[in-house]
């Protein structure tokens, strides 16, 4: 299985039926598989912060959701994470396509990309970076298990080492 097939399989294992997203090239590798699978119910968002509320509502209603977003989108979602998902104890797997790191061509992506890990650390959100395919099953399995046991957000950053970077110079 490819890394994205492994993630899709693990989402099903953990009964994560709902996927909300703001598109990016990395997350799309997961979504294009999920769209072919009737198990998943996929919601396009206009802004990443909405996804924090949507997954909160889904969990309150007895269902499990995850949010896929680009690196920039974490900046759009921080207050909802801090003032909704964390205090109300909502398990919220975040899949983030990591920009602003290895292979980045766009300097405007770098400050947010480099800030992600300290931001998650400051909020006490467990955060993991996937860099190679062999890490995907244990890290994603473990992160999902942690999220639903702890009932808190958990961030999974998918690096360009794993997913590839853009050809643009």
């Amino acid at each position: 299985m490819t890394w994205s097939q492994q993630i899709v399989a693990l989402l099903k294992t953990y009964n994560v039926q709902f996927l909300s997203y703001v598109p990016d090239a990395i997350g799309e590798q997961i979504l294009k598989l999920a769209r072919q699978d009737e198990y998943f119910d996929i919601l396009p968002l206009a802004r990443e912060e909405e996804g924090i509320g949507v997954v909160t509502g889904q969990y309150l209603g007895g269902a499990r959701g995850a949010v896929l977003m680009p690196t920039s989108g974490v900046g759009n979602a921080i207050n909802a994470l801090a003032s909704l998902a964390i205090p109300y104890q909502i398990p919220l797997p975040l899949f983030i396509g990591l920009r602003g790191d290895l292979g980045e061509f766009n300097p405007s992506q770098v400050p947010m990309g480099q800030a992600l890990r300290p931001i998650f650390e400051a909020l006490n959100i467990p955060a993991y970076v996937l860099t190679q395919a062999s890490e995907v099953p244990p890290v994603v399995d473990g992160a999902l298990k942690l999220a639903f046991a702890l009932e808190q957000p958990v961030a999974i950053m998918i690096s360009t080492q794993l997913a590839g970077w853009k050809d643009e110079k």
Partner: protein
Amino acid sequence: MINRLQATRYVVDNLHDEPIVASLGNAKFDLYIAKDRPQNFYMWNSMGMASSIGLGLAMARPQQTVVILDGDGSLLMNLNSLPTAAARSPENLIHIVWDNRQFELTGGQPTHTAFSTDLATIARGAGFKHVESVDTQADFEVVFDKALQESGPWIIVAHIDSERSPGRPPKSAALIKHRFMEALGIQPV
């Protein structure tokens, strides 16, 4: 002009065990006074998120009506949620927006609806088909009854007075969550 507490009482009195998501500030304060019930989800922060939480709840519970009590300032902070919800169009969603044209809690500063913004027009532009704008309690009751009986999603913009609510629900987010989920019959982890 509608009084928010009076209209909130009408909403709660006409529901059974349907969940209500109440936005931070006066929307949830008045809901607490009107009727504290475990199916009330009180938001203590994350301004703007009521509309998104309600959408997620409506998606997870398609057989049950979900009511959102929002404010003009809160909805203006998350206008993105309107096209998202309209595209999904959950039939079981009733989104009520109390519009007092001000940020009442922080000193009455005007919101954009005090000038030229009309939230009902924005909702229609976002793609909602059932949008009502009401100015009296009688009209509010007629529209809310209709929303309970006919498939939505519904957006009801209620023009209210500027009365401040003294209601203060419990502040423990964990308590609010757990009793809400228990009332909906969801087993704890």
